[in-house]
């Protein structure tokens, strides 16, 4: 039963990885990477239940705390990289309407 759960998590991770490769924008790719990471954490928790040892849970805790900093820094980067793009788009929209 636990192996089925691990297989489900790995499948979800693979589906999110497809989005990571195809994704139309940088933001989609980052969020897809986030989902893949969380699926990996879930699979790790299930695997530690399968083996009965808690040594893998340390990795889960560290990923839960560290994974968030990647999303935040990527969001800040995205915002600085293209600041002004939105006002340009709005100007373009107002000019065309």
């Amino acid at each position, binding site marked *: 039963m636990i192996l089925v759960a691990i297989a489900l998590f790995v499948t*979800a991770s693979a*589906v999110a990885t497809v989005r990571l490769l195809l994704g139309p924008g940088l933001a989609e790719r980052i969020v897809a990477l986030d989902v893949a990471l969380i699926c990996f954490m879930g699979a790790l928790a299930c695997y530690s239940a399968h083996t009965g040892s808690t040594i893998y*849970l340390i990795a*889960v805790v560290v990923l*839960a705390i560290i994974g968030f900093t990647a*999303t935040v820094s990527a969001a*800040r980067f995205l915002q600085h990289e293209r*600041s002004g793009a939105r006002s340009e788009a709005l100007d373009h929209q107002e000019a065309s309407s």
Partner: protein
Amino acid sequence: MNIVAGIIMCLGGALAILAAVGLHRFSTPYARFHAAGKASPVAFLVAAIGAALALGPAGAVELAIASVAMILTLPTGVHLMFRAVHRTSAPEIAVDELAPAERLAEAEED
């Protein structure tokens, strides 16, 4: 107890698949982030409950720490992603209630 834990972990895996499929099926970036940011932490939480049932108190403590850290941090990250997308790309949604407020804030800054 192990069968119950296995069933709960499988439920978590099914939720994770729903989150990953939501990334593909929705049309706008906001809807995609919604699927990713809501369903995936719940999937991890359900799997953590199942693993804690199987592992006993020693594992439950670490899983609880991981769950609390995830619940505190993940919505913040996804919210920042929402905001970055809203500020950098052209609006493609029917109702945009944030744009007038942001324009007002910019006008007050000037």
